[in-house]
């Protein structure tokens, strides 16, 4: 996936350079400026991710989501999903393993949803672009929406 993203970008850059060198230079400069602008937040977030993930490791997560049931377990899995930043290609197989080991669909559905939609740790980056109020409100709404998603996934899994 990543490679194709690079190939697309490099081809666009090539076409751009072929068509207009000055414009391409301007684009590169803009790319660098916007990157440099957000770099401090990114660095801070990366270290924070390291700290949080070393505390909330896989065994810890599976322990609280795997054995609990009901809204209590759902709420915990929602919070864990909201504060961790696990890439999908790790999270989905892990979630599937948890389901096989008796975790509930409601808990896993909520966990996957907050994992993708809520980013408590990246709020500093989000605030830089959207302001604190919008960043915080978006994350709160997405958190409650994820509880609904988990609830519906739990119901659907029961029906089918």
């Amino acid at each position, binding site marked *: 996936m990543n490679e194709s*993203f690079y190939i697309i970008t490099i081809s*666009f850059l090539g076409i751009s350079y072929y068509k207009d060198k000055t414009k391409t230079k301007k684009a590169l400069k803009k790319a660098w400026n916007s990157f440099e602008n957000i770099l*401090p937040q990114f660095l801070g977030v990366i270290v924070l991710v390291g700290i949080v993930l070393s505390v909330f490791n896989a065994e810890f997560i599976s322990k609280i989501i795997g054995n609990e049931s009901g809204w209590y377990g759902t709420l915990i899995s929602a919070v864990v999903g909201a504060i961790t930043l696990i890439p999908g290609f790790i999270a*989905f197989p892990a979630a599937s393993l948890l389901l096989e080991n008796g975790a509930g669909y409601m808990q896993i559905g909520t966990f996957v949803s907050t994992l993708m939609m809520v980013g408590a740790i990246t709020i500093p980056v989000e605030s830089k672009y959207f302001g604190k109020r919008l960043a915080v409100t978006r994350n709160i709404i997405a958190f409650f929406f994820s509880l609904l998603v988990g609830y519906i996934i739990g119901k*659907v*899994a029961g029906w089918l």
Partner: protein
Amino acid sequence: MIKRYRFFFITAVLLAIIFLINRELGLKAVNVTGYAFVEMASIIPPIFLLLGLLDVWVPRETMIKYMGEKSGIKGIILSFVIGSAAAGPLYGAFPIAAVFMKKGVKFTNVLIFIGAWSTTKIPMFLFELSSLGSKFAVTRLLIDIPGIIIIAFLLSRFIPEEEIEKIYIEAESL
């Protein structure tokens, strides 16, 4: 300069303290940080290069026409498609959203783009489908599509107009 890096310094000091208290946990945190850094470093360059190119090549009028105030359903669908075609974690969407705002994209469309990027990415959906099954993945997708639109409209209601204007002005300088 120092003020900009304050947040980073605080987290670095926190990491150092953890290291002093519990060496093993500290080492693990450094490892995860290194891993996250490599992941970010591999995802970020194309995102910023693409948005630089977008900024230079696509005229504001074009973006307004397709995704601006009067773009209607067409704008909503387009925001969904662009967000879903993306790769990479959510934080990659924010710089692109800033360029969208700079180019006059409607606020709800910017929010729909963010929502789509966060949860309806096509490559991720296919992966979810294969690991968690169609019952799980399809149900989630079907709830997420209206959910993203509702959240976008709720947010643009909740946030006062002056603040949205401020966010757009800020985006100019990013």
